């Protein structure tokens, strides 16, 4: 045993003389796995030992690991997505058939497909939960403005990833619900023009599919990766959020304990994903019928609130006018740190702010339900 560890050390030493291992590991730690930087001037084992010995702040635990969960789920999506890409064919003639092959012909293909779908939904849920937490805690106030903006943009990117993914699934319901959601996007003034340039009209499905495929597997994941890096970089600079009173508690846990905590959460989430994949399978649906809109369509769940907001206005109001409101809401959401500059440290104000926050959350939930139960006829 001792001999073997000796050999491992020998191997590390041998490599260390030829490559800067500390720098490489340090690169990995950029993504939130370590709470502290590695000293890249020292050999790996020493630098790691040094970093591991530093105690973690007592508050580095749930719910402050949501960013880390986003990273883990994103890696999980990359993995399953890579497997799906082996068999998926991004052409209108073959896409639906290739998905049938993935789900029924390839061993465990159905499982990978289901996990990819449910992983994406969970990723969205965690991103939304993270934003709600930031919002309620006021974590968009200085100096956390950029962390809020990256968190908001991460959500926007993730919805686009999900959206393009649904389109790639090439079944009738997903196709038409994407189409409806796109109509919503295009109607937004200024931004809609940009969207319609990127996505363009989907009349010519061949080009749309290949473009969406490119966006789904390369453009958007790269963007997501970049935003994650920014987010973690901000957190490493500013530190984790702390609740009043916690900051004085003595540091208790060291890195291994923290790692075990994380592993427990990851295993639990994996269990939930598997359960969903087995019990609530995503159906294939029918192949796309370009000529007939199916009745009773629902757009993806995270777009129901904006959809409900647009639809609640009377129909004589032009769609661009209605979606202007949507644009304002979106801009306020992303640029919130620069709009709300009050401090919430005073106890008298804090109560009032909590009430406002709850009302806003209730409005969002109301519009989600309104959008979900709107009667959408076929046509």
């Amino acid at each position, binding site marked *: 045993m001792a001999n073997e560890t000796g050999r491992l050390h020998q191997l590390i030493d041998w490599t260390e003389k030829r490559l800067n291992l500390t720098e490489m590991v340090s690169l990995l730690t950029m993504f939130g796995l370590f709470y502290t930087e590695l000293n890249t001037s020292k050999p790996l084992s020493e630098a790691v030992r040094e970093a591991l010995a530093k105690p973690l702040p007592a508050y580095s635990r749930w719910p402050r690991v949501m960013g880390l969960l986003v990273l883990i789920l994103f890696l999980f999506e990359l993995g399953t997505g890579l497997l799906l890409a082996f068999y998926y064919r991004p052409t209108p003639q073959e896409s639906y058939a290739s998905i*049938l092959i993935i*789900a*029924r012909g390839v061993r465990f293909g*159905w499982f990978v497909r289901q996990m990819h779908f449910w992983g994406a939904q969970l990723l969205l849920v965690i991103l939304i939960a993270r934003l709600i937490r930031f919002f309620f805690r006021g974590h968009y106030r200085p100096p956390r403005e950029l962390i809020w903006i990256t968190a908001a943009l991460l959500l926007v990117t993730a919805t686009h990833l999900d959206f393009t993914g649904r389109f790639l699934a090439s079944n009738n319901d997903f196709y038409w619900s994407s189409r409806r959601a796109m109509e919503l996007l295009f109607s937004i003034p200024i931004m809609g023009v940009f969207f319609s340039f990127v996505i363009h009209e989907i009349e010519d499905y061949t080009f749309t599919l290949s473009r969406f495929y490119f966006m789904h597997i390369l453009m958007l994941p790269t963007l997501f990766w970049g935003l994650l890096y920014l987010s973690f970089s901000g957190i490493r600079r500013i530190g984790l959020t702390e609740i009043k009173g916690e900051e004085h508690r003595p540091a*208790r*846990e*060291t890195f*291994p*304990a923290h790692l*075990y*905590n994380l*592993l*427990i959460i990851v*295993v*639990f989430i*994996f*269990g939930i994903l*598997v*359960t969903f994949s*087995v*019990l609530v*399978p995503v*159906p*294939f649906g029918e192949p796309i019928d370009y000529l007939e809109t199916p009745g009773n369509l629902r757009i993806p769940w995270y777009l129901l609130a904006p959809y409900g907001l647009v639809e609640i206005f009377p129909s004589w109001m032009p769609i661009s006018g209605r979606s202007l409101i949507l644009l304002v809401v979106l801009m306020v959401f992303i640029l919130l740190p620069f709009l709300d500059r009050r401090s919430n440290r005073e106890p008298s104000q804090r109560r009032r702010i909590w009430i406002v926050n709850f009302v806003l959350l209730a409005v969002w939930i109301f519009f989600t339900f309104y959008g979900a139960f709107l009667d959408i006829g076929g046509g």
Partner: protein
Amino acid sequence: MIVLVLFFSLIPAGQCGLCHPEERVQFAESIHAQEMISCTDCHDGDPSAISPEQAHRGKFRSLKRRTEIPKMCARCHSDPRMMRVYNLPTDQLALYRTSQHGTQIDRGDTRAAVCTDCHGTHKILRSTDPESPSYIRNIPETCGRCHGESESVEGSRPSSYTAYMQGVHAEELLKKNNPNAPECSRCHGIHGAAPAGVGDVSKICGNCHSAALRAFREGPHAAAMTEAGLPECVACHDNHATAASDIQDIQEICSECHATDSAEFEVGEKMRVLITGAEEQLAKAHQMVMQASSVPLYVEDYLARLEEARTHLMEAEPAIHTISLPEVERSAAIARSLGEEVEAEIEGELSELSLRKIGLIVFWFYILLTIWILFQYRQRSLRKQ
């Protein structure tokens, strides 16, 4: 003036259009105008004359007498040398003479249809032109102009047109755009149009419904109906208001001739049970296949077998006409047993899927075990400090 004369002499209507502008416009749209046929080819007279008296000199024919028209058209349309280039038949006049229309005209009954009644006078279009009165979808209406409600030539009988429009053939042709569904001429003939004789009905229907005809001739009804002078198919299905008999209505149909406690009536009821049973079985199996396809399972095989079962069921339907229980049973039973087979196999595959759920329980046991082990490690690492 010279320009005008030149202009009018360029079109085949010559100068006739100066006095007959309406006819000129109609004629200009016709297939005859396209083929450079002129007014004088039918009417004779002098097309270059400027006054009506001069134009209508000599052999001019107004063609106002309806009896003249068939012979007039036949001058060209019965000439094989002229029609050869258009690949048109030349037997129209001969057929027409045998038709009810032709014989009535020969007897001097001018109410009977002549060529122009169905094809138009000046604006004669190809029968493939959707505007033409002889276009397949327009035929019922064209015949209905005389055989319809407003101007019935059939006395007190309900008009054939109204009845036809209520039937399954009209629904197929006009609503579902099924070009195989018959309009009037498919049963009565085109130029040789005549009502079908009592003994000929099954032959006419059998042109399309050949399986039903074969079955009908094998069964006891064919001889019995001939003996009783009943019009075969029409006795149950009606002639113009042709109804696709629903097997569910078989009691009502049989009871028209057979007493409800007779053995014959019972045979009908048994056939209904056989067919309905097979139909229900196939519907149930189809639903299960759809359920399995969303799981997802390979269902193409099952779908093909259900299609085969449906073909057998379709064979059972004409077999009803034999009134032979074993005949119907043979096809219906195959259809039903195929449906049952598919259902049983799908059920088996679906129950295998419940194994996945058992697997899930085992999986969660391991997940919780892993979490417990990780938790122990965590505690140990905390104690080490």
